[in-house]
């Protein structure tokens, strides 16, 4: 006898990636030889001591289980269940979270399905292999300034500024921008998830020659170890990155001459006593803007910030803070003005600049280039994912909110953060 597990309706290796959010799965007897009736099986983690771990649900919403007992028809008909990564037990390698299917009667192993609990992690906690895979994928995507990354660089400029900044859509727009990039990186190496720079803590492992590099004391030109592929980073026809911190990256959180980034707990309180979105989004100034200007160089100006790969780790942390605020304050219902609002008015008043209202499509993914949108829309539509159809090729602001599918499972975007769980 042999079992077969499908995730999201597929047995493809490309679909074997999980976050914290439960995804629909099925199991069936793919080879029924020897089965004389329904077969009772147990699903469990193959190795409890290492690698990513998963949990099971018979249905959702429901209670997670470390093991799942199911009875499989001898006809080979599938049985549905849900599966998710176990919070705080992410993978470090592709396929290191294996689900083992055991015949409950004979204890015979009927199948092993390797999975990956692929989670965005704090950059300072990555293993060497995780770090190197991320750097290699990013360098390949940029391809010395000749690759597709140039579209991302060309989106985050003064022309695209009003689409991305200064208003309610700041957080959703950047969530989409990161997701688009991460999906591109995953097409190069599906085991890669975007790490984040937790800028309210020292990050010596991140600001090292083997990762994001160290500034030359004379010129602020970032230097890398000889094995780091970012040493070949080029944008706009010129190789290299310019970035000098105003703070001690070994001992301090991000600090510029104008101040220090807000601590995480302070940021999460920006929504005020009622925990509302509009005041929370002032985090666009501090910590977001403060983190940008805690350096000189590319990352400190809007037209050049996305030339520096650090930009994406900085913004992954901004997005994580929004995600954490959403989780701790339960802000996933787009019908609530506490979840998303424009100038304290609900969702789509239509008076705010297009692109920032709840039901607006976002540039550049909508490919609209007539005013007031910018004259070009580099990069085309949103990169698709084999794991989910959300947020679609031309995402709306609204589509970026319920990123885990807490309220609407179909809106799950397919990423999670190491310290932001899924909770019904």
């Amino acid at each position, binding site marked *: 006898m042999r079992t077969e597990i499908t995730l999201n309706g597929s047995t493809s290796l490309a679909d074997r990636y999980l976050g914290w959010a439960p995804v629909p799965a099925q199991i069936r007897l793919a080879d029924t030889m020897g089965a004389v009736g329904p077969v009772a099986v147990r699903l469990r983690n193959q190795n409890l001591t290492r690698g990513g771990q998963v949990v099971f649900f018979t249905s959702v919403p429901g209670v997670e289980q470390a093991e799942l007992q199911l009875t499989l028809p001898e006809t080979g008909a599938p049985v549905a269940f849900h599966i998710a990564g176990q*919070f705080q037990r992410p993978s470090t390698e592709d396929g290191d979270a294996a689900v083992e299917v055991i015949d409950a009667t004979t204890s015979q192993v009927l199948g092993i399905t390797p999975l990956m609990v692929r989670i965005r992690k704090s950059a300072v906690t990555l293993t060497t292999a995780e770090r*190197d895979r991320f750097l290699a994928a990013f360098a390949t995507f940029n391809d*010395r300034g000749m690759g597709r990354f140039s579209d991302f660089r060309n989106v985050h400029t003064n022309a695209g500024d009003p689409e991305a900044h200064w208003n309610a859509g700041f957080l959703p727009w950047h969530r989409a921008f990161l997701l688009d990039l991460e999906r591109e990186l995953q097409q190069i190496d599906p085991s890669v998830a975007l790490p984040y720079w937790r800028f309210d803590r020292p990050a010596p492992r991140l600001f090292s020659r083997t990762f994001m590099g160290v500034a030359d004391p004379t*010129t*602020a030109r970032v230097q890398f170890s000889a094995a780091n*592929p970012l040493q070949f980073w080029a944008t706009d026809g010129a190789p290299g990155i310019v970035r000098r911190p105003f703070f001690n990256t070994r001992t301090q959180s991000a600090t510029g001459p104008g101040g220090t980034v807000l601590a995480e707990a302070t940021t999460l309180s920006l929504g005020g006593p009622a925990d509302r979105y509009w005041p929370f989004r*002032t985090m666009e100034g*501090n910590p977001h803007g403060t983190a940008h200007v805690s350096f000189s160089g590319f990352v400190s100006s809007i037209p*050049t910030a996305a030339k520096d790969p650090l930009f994406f780790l900085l913004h992954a942390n901004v997005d994580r803070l929004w995600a954490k605020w959403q989780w701790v304050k339960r802000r996933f219902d787009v019908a609530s003005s506490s979840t998303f609002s424009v100038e304290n008015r609900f969702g789509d008043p239509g008076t705010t*600049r297009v692109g920032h209202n709840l039901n607006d499509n976002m540039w550049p993914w909508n490919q609209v280039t007539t005013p007031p949108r910018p004259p070009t829309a580099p990069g085309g539509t949103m990169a698709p994912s084999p794991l989910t159809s959300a947020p679609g090729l031309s995402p709306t602001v609204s589509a970026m909110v319920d990123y885990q599918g807490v309220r609407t499972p179909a809106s799950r975007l397919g990423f999670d953060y190491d310290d932001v769980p899924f909770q019904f």
Partner: protein
Amino acid sequence: MDVPEYRRQVEAELEQAAQQQTSFRELLGSGPAARRKMAPAAAALQDDDDLTAAVGVLSDRAADLGLQTAALQVISNNIEARPELIDRLLELLRDTVPADLRRAILNVLQQISFRMVLFPGKRPDYLATLRSIIEDPDAQLRRRAIGILAREKDEYVQRRLIEGLEQRSRALVPAAKAIQFLGYDVHAEYFPLLRRIIEQPPSRAAKREAVRLLAADPAATDLLVALLNDKQEDPEVRRTAAVALQSLAPDRFEGQARRIVLDDDEDDELRAVSISALTQFANPAALRQDDQLNRRIGQLRAESGSRQVQQATAGYLSKHGA
């Protein structure tokens, strides 16, 4: 830890942080040590009276910098409600207040540029103010203003940077920084100047920056190859030439990189850079068939005492090894 327990822990942390929050006016009444600790949180919690107090502190020439920095954060957080305060910040940036405060103001203005819907309307004044301080006696302030303008591709500052490279008495910043700033908007007319700098460099750093920018010059391939092959040249210049050549003419670089890896007398770090470039960007099928190169990399892995070469060969063998 299960998720409900984790939630209780996070909520407790937020509760504790909320109790520690203070207003800017409370900050005014505390000592310097307490102010340093409280300032970031105070910037997040303020009302109209706090804002009024912050504006007052910023104008108080006797106030200490820590307090003024906290005041700047309060103003920054409220700038959408009081956009006229941008004019006040620009005024202070042009003023004779201490350079430390002006650097903090410049930093906050740059932060505001990331988040303020009204900022585009203020941008012309902001850029004009920056232009007015590019000869400021404070070198840090000068350099930061020039850097921001250069990233905005400001033609005036580009012209001044070129003047400084051509006549050192008119230099606003060291030559290496001037070249780097011009690199934000590379024009073909810079290339003759860059070649002259490479021939007669004012500093090693300036030469490296000039070599780097020549990656944008299609006619510079032979020059970059010559610099890369010159074993008498500064190793850092050679490595910069390798990176520039790799960007400008990848095929030409790969041949050079192979030669460097096979050469017993080459600089270890340059060898490591070459191996890394081949690892990351060369055609994997061609590499697999290159027995001589693969033998050599295996030998370097086994015998090299260079940490950089060890890391690079490990990366190569992990990706392309048999």
